[in-house]
């Protein structure tokens, strides 16, 4: 590691707030986007499954 200690890594000279806030916001945004896509995929699947089951129920009797 380039830094001597964890606190040095955290502070990065005087630039810690900039670097960590940039990485925090950026990674959070990207992760939120992927999570949103996954959540949407899950809800769509659940909806379609329910529809299918309802159709199957209607067809059986």
């Amino acid at each position, binding site marked *: *590691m*380039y*830094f001597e200690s964890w606190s040095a*890594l955290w502070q*990065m*000279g*005087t*630039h*810690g707030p*900039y*670097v960590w*806030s*940039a*990485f925090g*916001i*950026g*990674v959070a*945004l*990207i992760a939120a*986007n*992927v999570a*949103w*896509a*996954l959540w*949407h*995929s899950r809800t*769509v*699947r659940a909806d*379609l*499954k329910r*529809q*299918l089951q309802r159709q199957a129920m209607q067809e059986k009797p």
Partner: protein
Amino acid sequence: MTETARPVPGHFYLWSGLGLLVAVALYVFWQAPQPNRTVLVVGGYLLSVLFYFGAVRYPHWYWQALVRWYHQLGSPRHFYRISGVLLPYLVALSGGLLLVGLIWGLAFSPPHHEQGNSYRIIYLHVPAASGAMMGYMAMGICGLVSLVWRMKMAEVAIKAIAPFGATLAAVALITGAIWGRPTWGTYWIWDARLTSMLILFFMYLGVMGLQNAIADPRQAGRAASLLSLVGIINVVIVRYSVDWWHSLHQGSSMSIFGAGGSQIHPSMLAPLLISMFGTYFLFAVAVLIRTRTEVLWRERRSRWVKEVLR
């Protein structure tokens, strides 16, 4: 479709040897910055060998494979199957690359000789910016494909690319602003690169807005295709016009990669390239997830979807 293996002919060695010589000569005499030169020359050589084998030597097999690939990609069912196989590998690849690249960049690479540690934002900023740019290019190509060949999957792909591309553009803008504060002394400059990234962000929003405003999915897809195709021309013109505008008024000298090319020390380039490829793969993951969802929804009445969901 099985082609009997033919022995590689002698003149192949001759031509590929000559090609290698030309590539090496290009590499030695070319004035471009070193990393770009390496990528271009090696990539060009590999591509030409691929092209030789494919298009010149075995054209029959090549075209057959291309057409089959195109049809499979264009068919929702095959796309769903293939992307399902691919997705876990892509997730692992992108996650691994991003983890290595970002941690290497944050904790292990040396600081910049003038900017100190604040430059470490580059490891997120540049991948996001280039991902947003490439995403728009991909969207424009999909737009062309969907308009010319009326390929359904291309319309779906546009709808899937836009949200992640917009997010990357936003990330590039935000991280750029935070980086600008310690480096330039201000969060925002109307620099050519910043301005064109902002316009790119708006254009992503425009495509998403148009998609959402039109109820019929086919019509929305085709409208978005046309808009993203027109947008690609605009992105290019904006890039140059803003540059020009600044040569009239104020300096665009603050941009990071100027006309002179960039010289990045290998100890900084390696993590940067790794996180860039990680971002591209993550882009592919996000697009595949959204495309799969959309395909399932659009094809919900077909038999294969019922089988998949069972």
